[in-house]
């Protein structure tokens, strides 16, 4: 009896001490909260990683200027993984060991996956920016500590295919995609969503990231006679695929994933000669209040237009800050994840995030809008 009482009171004392310890630094030591951003700012994904880095720096400044997290400043240590998954994982281990309480990683699906293993084992919040859902939504279920900014592939696919069905009267599609995690994964989702909308998939072709000739794939798709081509890819290679299709006389509408939504790709595709091309992005159409505010800040600081990667970087940093605020001083992965899963609406550049225990993307198809290429630049259809 006495022993039980003694154990219980000891436990209460320890709990009290721990509780005291966890709130003490907030009042006593105003040291900044350490956060990490592991991004691909060099190597093949640098065109994505650099705007993300710019946006994180801007977000850090803005968050601190507005009082930080309950009065406490934050600091992002931004490191470069060079687009290599093993290096990203190594950096994540170092960052966690040196007391960083949340990680933004990363720019690519493979680096994000590699880091998710580290953050999962250490129970640290991770936010990533690629449209691939499978980093948090695995076959074994939802990964508690990993959250995704940027509308997931499925939302893009639904937005694009609904548009094709209602506005372009498309009944059959042919799919063309990058041969990698992003392209193949997206193509599979697009095929499933097309069938769900009652469309027929009459062809599915892929090409490697290093492809310079697309004739076999385009000829096969042309012979399958679809009403439209769905193109799932990123970097400049899809631009070359579009040019190849137009050169071979294929005039079908091309519906591309957000990976093709850049002026550079239209330039590669031949500018006005790119023909009827659509893409999907939260940044398409008239900007929301949040998007306009971010674009103004970004332009003032860097004199650059906002690209989707910058918006993603901004949102990732803001979501980490939101989690820290809502967790009221707790910084472990579970507490931060619970704070986000509580489902408060968080309006940011990519849309209004509303997470739940089963949805770590938190966006809806309505957050994705359709963009149309006209004379070498992107606008509204």
């Amino acid at each position: 009896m006495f022993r039980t009482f003694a154990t219980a009171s000891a436990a209460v004392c320890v709990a009290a001490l721990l509780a005291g310890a966890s709130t003490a630094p907030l009042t006593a030591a105003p040291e900044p909260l350490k956060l990490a951003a592991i991004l691909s700012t060099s190597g093949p994904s640098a065109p994505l990683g650099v705007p993300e880095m710019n946006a994180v720096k801007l977000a850090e400044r803005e968050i601190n200027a507005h009082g930080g997290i309950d009065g406490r400043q934050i600091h992002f240590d931004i490191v470069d993984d060079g687009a290599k998954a093993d290096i990203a994982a190594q950096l994540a281990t170092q960052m966690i060991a040196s007391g960083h309480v949340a990680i933004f990683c990363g720019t690519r699906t493979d680096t994000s996956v590699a880091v998710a293993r580290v953050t999962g084992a250490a129970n640290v919040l991770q936010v990533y920016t690629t449209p691939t859902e499978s980093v948090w939504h695995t076959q074994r279920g939802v990964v508690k500590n990993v959250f995704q900014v940027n509308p997931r592939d499925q939302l893009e696919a639904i937005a694009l295919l609904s548009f094709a069905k209602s506005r372009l009267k498309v009944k059959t599609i042919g799919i063309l995609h990058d041969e990698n995690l992003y392209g193949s994964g997206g193509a599979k989702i697009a095929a499933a969503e097309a069938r769900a909308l009652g469309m027929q998939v009459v062809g599915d072709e892929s090409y490697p990231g290093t492809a310079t000739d697309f004739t076999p794939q385009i000829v096969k798709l042309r012979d399958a006679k679809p009403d439209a081509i769905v193109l799932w890819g990123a970097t400049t290679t899809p631009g070359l695929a579009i040019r190849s299709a137009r050169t071979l006389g294929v005039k079908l509408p091309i519906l591309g994933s957000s990976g093709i939504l850049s002026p550079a790709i239209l330039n590669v595709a031949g500018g006005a000669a790119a023909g009827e091309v659509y893409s999907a992005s939260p940044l398409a159409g008239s900007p929301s209040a949040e998007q306009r505010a971010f674009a103004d800040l970004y332009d003032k600081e860097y004199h650059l237009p906002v690209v989707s990667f910058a918006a993603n970087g901004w949102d990732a940093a803001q979501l980490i800050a939101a989690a820290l605020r809502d967790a009221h001083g707790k910084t472990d992965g579970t507490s931060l994840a619970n704070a986000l899963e509580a489902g408060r609406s968080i309006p940011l550049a990519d849309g209004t995030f509303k997470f739940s225990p089963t949805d770590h993307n938190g966006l809806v198809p309505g957050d994705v809008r359709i963009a149309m290429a006209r004379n070498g630049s992107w606008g509204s259809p």
Partner: protein
Amino acid sequence: MLQLLIAGLTVGSEFALIALGIHIILRATRVVNFAQGEFSIVGGLIALTCAEVLHANAWFALAGATLAGFVLGLVFEIVVLRPAGRTGGEAGVTIATIGAVFVLLYGHALVPGWGSDSHPLPGFGGPANIVILSLSKDGGAVVQVQSLWVFALLIAALAALYVFFERTYYGKAIRAAAENPLGARLVGIDVNSARAISVALGIALAAYGGTIIGPITLVGGAAGFALTIKGFVAAIVGGLESPVGCVAGGFVVGVLQVFLQSRMSYDVADPLVYSVLLLMLLVRPQGLFGRRDVVRD
């Protein structure tokens, strides 16, 4: 069918130019230059700078890139390959070329205006997208004007190399220096500079190739090493010892690749193309155009 053939020949030209460069450098140094494709990428980027920054027309960009490739080749031989050969022999030189792949791949991305992305390059003879239709039985095919330029410029390069190596005193001296360095030295040929000129020619050819194919395939990016390997397969198929074989090998590999891709998915077709390399090495190691009696050393 005709359409696929045209695509295959265009892709094949790219491989042929790489194979030719590998051939020239192999003949001079007895080493396969694994950075050949990477130099081709850099050459295309130099042409891009000529066109965009200096506002040169396509022909001046081609001349500028080729000349820059030649100078780059001289530097490459004198600063990298020669010291590597002195300490490490042929294995050392081979590893130095592999090292050059990474230096060029990551190095070119740091150059302002180049970056790690691919860029379109203006074509010869007007807009890059002008196409002509040639009718045949199965409905006709589209040919990019630039493809025709690529074929013509490939043949021109081959002819120029033939004249240089077979008809000029200097070209013959270079061949002699490569085939019998000791004998060449005895008759007063500077073997070191002959070797440097050969490597420079090989790299100039890479830059030339990267520039003429650039309007079709874009310039820059990370595809250089894949290009080297395809060029190497082409050289093996055609015959490493024969310039004509290298060009023919390029066409064979290009057409084969395109036809296989039109029958099956790319991830099945690509390994099949590489297995041609193994098959050739087993069945006809001297290549389609090589002679069996050619023996080195």
